[in-house]
């Protein structure tokens, strides 16, 4: 029965996080001293505080020691957190989503027994997935079979009961903080594309695993590249990294992440994070428009500003509906079976639609601020930048739309 009522627990979590974001995070996050420099190190004290509120283990099952929150609740929480600070929301969202996937879905009982207690107990314990999926950039192979040359991952060779891994993975989200990595490697010698991939659990302190420098504001030759992600990320390097066969996640040569479905949870979480940024910029604009006087009235009372505010309102409302729907759908596959929901890839639609909407909202919000919208001591320019990053990610841009079109056409790609 269709019902948009939130549970008292959901409302309470929303209140708690909204309060935390407004009171504790925001002042630090948008302090001019933090806004002006290019580098914005993760505010680790706030990250730990947020972890103490249970966000890190939010989605982990209650049995395993988490809060067992469903995807919708997770989205509600992450949106609030992101109104306070986007990197913290991204880091926690990544760990929370991976926590559920790794511990509750993929690990064997034995593996879980080895790692879950430390994960639950340690507020600074984060998770990272280092790998690629068939979904990543699939739009570029629109209506063609998968193109396999792009899939380069570390290789693993069997050595007794161990595997020895060599290779490098660029730009692994959460890597600078993660204590446990799920690393995709090629075990099948001579295999290509997404076939012959396996995933290993590798604790950070494993010999041969090196987390490289955190990605900085500028990089590349002559600083020709600019940091372009939320959260925190670094490359990892594996040099003769020996991992016991017991750390293999699932079956050899059948990487559970390969088809990308397990990461739908993460797409939706990131969509919720984007909503938080959009809302932060929108709320700033509404407040300012009701205070700033020009033309003999508060600027809110001018039709031109009113139109911008209304456009923001509409875009955020529509995006949130879509994100929540996609989140709920992930937990309720039966709703597709009974035809309450369509078979469209709702998580992709949510990610694309919210990214575009939030991008536009941050720009409209900045316009309300005039020159102050580009000053580095003001938060608007950062919200705008955050919005650009959401909108120009591989999984939220034109190629992602093509994945939607393929689904409409019922196209099935032969895996490479």
């Amino acid at each position, binding site marked *: 029965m269709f019902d948009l009522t939130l549970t008292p627990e959901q409302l309470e979590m929303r209140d708690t996080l909204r309060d935390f974001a407004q009171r504790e995070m925001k002042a630090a996050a948008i302090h001019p001293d933090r806004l002006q420099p290019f580098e914005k190190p993760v505010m680790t004290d706030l990250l730990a505080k947020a972890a103490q509120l249970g966000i890190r283990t939010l989605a982990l099952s209650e049995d395993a020691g988490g809060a067992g929150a469903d995807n919708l609740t997770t989205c509600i929480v992450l949106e609030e957190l992101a109104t306070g600070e986007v990197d913290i929301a991204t880091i926690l969202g990544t760990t929370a989503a991976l926590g559920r996937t790794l511990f509750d879905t993929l690990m064997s009982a034995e593996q879980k027994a080895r790692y879950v207690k430390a994960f639950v107990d340690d507020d600074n314990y984060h998770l990272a997935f280092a790998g690629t999926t068939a979904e990543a950039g699939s739009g570029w192979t629109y209506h063609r079979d998968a193109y396999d040359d792009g899939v380069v991952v570390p290789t693993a060779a069997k050595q007794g009961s161990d595997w020895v891994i060599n290779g490098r993975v*660029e*730009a692994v989200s959460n890597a600078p903080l993660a204590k446990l990595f799920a690393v995709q490697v090629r075990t099948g010698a001579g295999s290509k594309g997404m076939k012959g991939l396996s995933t290993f659990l590798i604790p950070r302190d494993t010999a041969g695993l090196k987390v490289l420098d955190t990605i900085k504001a*500028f990089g590349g030759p002559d600083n020709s590249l600019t*940091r372009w992600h939320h959260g925190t990320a670094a490359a990892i390097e594996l040099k003769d990294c020996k991992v016991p066969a017991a750390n293999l996640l699932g079956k050899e040569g059948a990487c559970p992440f390969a088809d990308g479905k397990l990461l739908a949870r993460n797409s939706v979480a990131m969509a919720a994070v984007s909503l938080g940024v959009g809302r932060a910029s929108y709320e700033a604009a509404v407040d300012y428009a009701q205070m700033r006087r020009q*033309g003999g009235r508060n600027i809110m009372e001018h039709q031109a500003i009113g139109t911008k505010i209304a456009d923001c309102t509409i875009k955020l409302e529509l995006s949130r509906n879509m994100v929540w729907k996609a989140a709920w759908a992930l937990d309720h596959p039966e709703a597709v079976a009974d035809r309450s929901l369509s078979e469209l890839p709702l998580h992709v639609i949510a990610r694309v639609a919210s990214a575009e909407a939030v991008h536009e909202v941050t720009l409209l919000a900045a*316009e309300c601020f005039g*020159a102050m919208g*580009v000053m580095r001591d003001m938060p608007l320019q950062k919200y705008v930048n955050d919005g650009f990053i959401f909108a120009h990610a591989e999984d939220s841009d034109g190629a992602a739309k*093509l994945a939607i079109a393929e689904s409409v056409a019922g196209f099935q790609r032969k895996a490479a």
Partner: protein
Amino acid sequence: MDFSLNEEQRHWQSEARKFATEVLRPASVARDQIEGGFEPWNWDIIEAGSKLGFRTLAVPKEWGGPGADFVSQAIVMAELAKGDSAMSKAFSQNWKWSHLISVACSNDQKERFLKPFLADHRYVMGRGITEPNAGSDNRMPPEDDPKAGYRVRATQDGKDWVLNGEKCFIANGSVGSLFFVDARSNPDVNIKLGGTLFMVPKGTPGFRIGKVFNKRGWRFYQNAELIFENCRLPAANIVGEVGTGSVKAGKGDTTGGDIFGDLELAANALGVCDDAVEMAMTYARTAKRAGKVLMEHQLVQLRIHEMHMLTEALRSYVLRTAWQHDAGEHSANAGFVMNYSTDIIQRVTRLNMQVHGAEGCLMNSRADKLVRDAMVWTHLAGDTVQRVKILKRLK
């Protein structure tokens, strides 16, 4: 009808292109990546460009300047902006004030200010209008509120005038040798009747620079607060008459739009768009997705098509408007093309970023810079107040 450039115009185009390629572009991203508000600035670049005539380009020949026409000015701005938009603006920002001096100032004032401007490669100028509580109200004073608009107070004291108050977001604020400052000689009537325009040289007692703003885009270009605390000026520093309002004092509007200011931003945007188109074409011809260069993907073809199309439309409009200025033809096009350039520069630089896409967790720094530079247009050249104001110029 004839769109071809004359010899002088071609001369300025090739000079500017050379300077942009050899000096501005190589320094562009590097200076953008320097922390701080003032720090990205570089006097050597200004001096080098000044020696080629770019600082003084608009000064009439009879006063010893190059006296380039508007078409040449538009071309130079675009060429320099293709190297670096903020650096281009740092040069052209001077042109409107040198123009103002030559059109609206007395011979005595010209002697005192135009000559040093011509002589000193590091002499740059600015104008102070905006204040913390007076932004769009200066552009379009509300009819029902005579007190709206700038509030810096100018009080007569004997033969002198004394300024008190603060200006913010003033271009060249931290580096200027001379500022045109709009002050309220009569605070009880609207700014068209109670406004007076003063020339305030650097070093005048009671005048100092406040905060230097740290911006997201146009980081090279300077922007600061001007603070007046009993700043005393001789009546000889008044432009035109007392209480004529700043537009009238500046004899500003003879072609239906601002003589120069509006065209300036449009021409600069054109250079940025040219840069973006070139970047996107180059990248799309080498980078691959799914085994094909980007240029073979319709997704990318349509983006680059749009970039090129919009850039050529903007070029056409900029050149036509520049010619209209030179021909003294009445038109509101300067304002419209400025607003138009806001929409185009933003669209084109964003498409360029889309063409480049995120490479893992990194974005091409110059693609990112162009987007940030373009954002400046939002409030300088295309906010809704400006659009409404410019619509009113139509007959």
